[in-house]
């Protein structure tokens, strides 16, 4: 066999080529080639390279372990593995198998120069590629796979469960026709109940109204009696009035009014004196500042001591007119004098100073402005204000003239007003004094008053009667009763009809129907209609109850299955972690049986005991850690021969290979004992003896010598 290759790994930026004189032409057909070297010397790569070149990952996909397939097929990734090779192998029939690949190209196989595809090639040769394993490690591997498969199944079941639950919930949101029908019936029933209650209420109201109309008819009849009495009283009063002669009309003097008005006049005269006193005070005040002697003289001559009687006899009028005119002139002169004083330059200055004072007072009230004066202008406004006040206080003339002006300004007007008042009261007193004394005895007045009262009473009774009679006539039973006789007759017939009926009982029943029963019925109707609307708005359902029950059943099963699968993870984890396995349910036991059978199958259903005895097994109990044998015995896992079992397993595989050209690649076989190796070698020798072309390659770790070596075992 000739082997040449170049492998460049971009990730390591490193190129690998075969060791000259060893790998290139050291591997021989019809032999067992044992490659020894320390780790990372390319031993396993050689097995992978030959397998890749022989299309093992394509043609033996279902015969080899996934882990082996994975380590071969990775060279398809030309980005990660820049591989080229040229391999020549002599076949059993003497033809030459050439395997080639360029770095960027695909793998090719030629038999004597003729291109062979993967399938054609597999008809010529068979490859057994494996690595011996400890059965206990294999159990762990199987359990790891079972855990993975269990989780995959659990994932699918959980996803299905979610979909079933969603469908279940969604269909619950669909219309319930039975419920809708039920609500319809309840609505109809409640409508009927309401109609019945309304009828009862109407009947009761009618009955109550009839009984109440009896009372009303009684009142109308009493009003008729009262009206007739009023009519009689009216006629009597009218007759009595006619018997009295109406006295002549003369006005009667009102002495009380005369006294009141004279008292008012006395007060008006006092007020006039008070107004005159204001003028006198003004003259006195101004005399301190100017000459008022002429004005005072005119004032002294004024006549004001009027008697009350002079007001009524007319002698007062002329005197008052003169007084009014004089006082007006004096006041005018006084005001002119005041104005002259105020217009004097010194007083003008004082007035302006007074205005400054007002401005300063407002400035002080404004804290911000006051601060500016104090801090920026260095002026203390309070001190300035005090000084201004002192100046103004020293000159009292200003206050005096101001007061004078204020006091006398309205005096002429007030005096005129008081004069007009006196004229009015005198006119009333004069009128009253002109009236005479009464001589009538009052009998006509009495008769007249009685007649007026009787007339008013008759009018009232007639109005009352008409009003309640109109009410009565509006009641159907009394609609044609326009006189007493008919009203009494109709009232008697109704009284007989409702002879033994208690109106309070009727009112209580009517109140209960309207305030409780009808309200309750309306509430029920509203509730049923709301529920009906809610259900009616839902989507219609297309599935019968049987389908919905099935859906619920499968949803329940799916939940149960998910629960079981979840529970199966526990024993797997417990075994992997070396813990004792607790079997809580029968399902757990059965799951362990299934797992155990898969483990047994992965070991080809047999083990070798430590003494070399072969035992057929059908299961492995992960709880008791025992292999269950076909002869109903059991073998503890620690009693199993690890190496021999693997050797026997490999030998079995070799024996099952039947093609003309056989390749046996066993990685890391150096770990097994010589006895185990012997079993494998013997199987290979048997195949050679059968005339097959056999190329076996073992790899073994040699920790003592790192260099790669090839040993031929045949």
């Amino acid at each position, binding site marked *: 066999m000739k082997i040449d290759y170049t492998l460049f790994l971009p990730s390591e930026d490193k190129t690998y080529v075969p060791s000259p004189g060893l790998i290139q032409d050291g591997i021989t057909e019809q032999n067992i080639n044992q490659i020894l070297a320390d780790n990372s010397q390319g031993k396993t790569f050689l097995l992978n390279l030959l397998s890749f070149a022989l299309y093992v990952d394509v043609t033996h996909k279902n015969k080899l372990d996934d882990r082996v397939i994975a380590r071969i097929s990775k060279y398809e990734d030309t980005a990660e593995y820049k591989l080229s090779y040229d391999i020549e192998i002599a076949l059993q029939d003497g033809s030459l198998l050439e395997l080639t690949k360029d770095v960027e190209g695909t793998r090719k196989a030629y038999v004597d120069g003729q291109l062979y595809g993967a399938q054609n090639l597999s008809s010529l040769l068979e490859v057994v590629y494996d690595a011996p394993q400890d059965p206990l490690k294999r159990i762990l591997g199987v359990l790891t796979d079972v855990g993975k498969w269990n989780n995959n199944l659990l994932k699918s079941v959980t996803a299905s469960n979610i*979909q079933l639950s969603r469908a279940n919930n*969604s269909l619950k949101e669909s219309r319930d026709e039975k419920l809708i029908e039920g609500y319809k019936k309840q609505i109809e029933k409640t409508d009927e109940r309401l109609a019945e209650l309304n009828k009862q209420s109407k009947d009761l109201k009618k009955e109550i109204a009839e009984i109440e109309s009896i009372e009303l008819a009684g009142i109308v009849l009493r009003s008729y009696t009262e009206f007739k009495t009023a009519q009689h009283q009216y006629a009597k009063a009218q007759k009595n009035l006619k018997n009295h002669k109406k006295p002549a009309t003369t006005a009667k003097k009102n002495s009380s009014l005369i006294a009141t008005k004279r008292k008012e006049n006395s007060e008006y005269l006092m007020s006039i004196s008070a107004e005159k006193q204001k003028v006198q005070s003004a003259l006195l005040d101004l005399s301190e500042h100017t000459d008022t002697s002429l004005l005072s003289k005119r004032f002294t001559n004024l006549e004001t001591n009027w008697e009350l009687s002079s007001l009524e006899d007319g002698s007062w009028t002329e005197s008052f007119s003169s007084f009014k005119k004089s006082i007006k002139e004096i006041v005018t002169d006084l005001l002119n004098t005041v104005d002259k004083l105020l217009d004097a330059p010194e007083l003008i200055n004082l007035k302006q100073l007074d205005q400054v004072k007002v401005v300063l007072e407002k400035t002080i009230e404004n804290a911000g402005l006051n601060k500016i004066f104090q801090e920026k202008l260095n002026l203390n406004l309070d001190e300035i204000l005090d000084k201004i006040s002192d100046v103004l206080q020293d000159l009292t003339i200003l206050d005096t003239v101001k007061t004078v002006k204020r006091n006398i300004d309205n005096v002429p007007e007030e005096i005129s007003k008081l004069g007009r008042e006196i004229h009015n009261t005198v006119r009333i007193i004069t009128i009253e004094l002109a009236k005479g004394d009464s001589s009538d005895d009052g009998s006509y007045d009495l008769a007249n008053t009685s007649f007026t009262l009787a007339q008013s009473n008759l009018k009232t009774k007639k109005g009352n009667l008409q009003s309640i009679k109109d009410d009565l006539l509006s009641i159907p039973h009394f609609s044609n009763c326009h006189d007493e006789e008919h009203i009494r007759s109709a009232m008697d017939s109704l009284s007989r009809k409702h002879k033994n009926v208690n109106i309070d009982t009727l009112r209580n029943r009517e109140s209960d129907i309207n305030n409780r029963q009808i309200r309750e019925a309306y509430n029920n109707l509203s509730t049923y209609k709301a529920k009906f609307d809610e259900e009616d708005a839902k989507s219609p359902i297309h599935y019968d109850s049987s389908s919905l029950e099935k859906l619920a059943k499968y949803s329940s099963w799916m939940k149960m299955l998910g629960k079981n699968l979840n529970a*199966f993870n526990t024993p797997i984890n417990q075994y992997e972690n070396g813990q004792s396995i607790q079997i809580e349910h029968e399902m757990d036991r059965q799951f362990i049986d299934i797992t155990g059978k898969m483990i047994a199958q992965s070991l080809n259903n047999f083990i070798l005991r430590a003494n070399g005895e072969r035992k057929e097994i059908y299961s492995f109990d992960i709880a008791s850690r025992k292999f269950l044998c076909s002869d109903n015995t059991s073998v503890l896992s620690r009693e199993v021969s690890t190496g021999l079992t693997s050797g026997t397993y490999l030998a079995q595989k070799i024996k099952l290979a039947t093609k003309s050209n056989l390749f046996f690649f066993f990685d890391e076989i150096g770990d097994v004992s010589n006895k185990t190796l012997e079993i494998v070698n013997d199987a290979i020798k048997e195949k050679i003896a059968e005339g097959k072309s056999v190329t076996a390659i073992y790899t073994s770790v040699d920790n003592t010598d790192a260099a790669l070596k090839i040993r031929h075992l045949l």
Partner: protein
Amino acid sequence: MKENMYRDGILDLFVTTNDLTAAQKEVLEKLIDLKDNASIAEIMEIISSDEN
């Protein structure tokens, strides 16, 4: 392949324990393999093949 064996074993175990018929097992398997976001109609169609 081996994963399918495991799945079959587990489903057989469930079917036996809960007395499911073969048709019901088939429905159960189809439901486990439901595609994502299957419609209610699709689910009910699968379930309808259970005539029990």
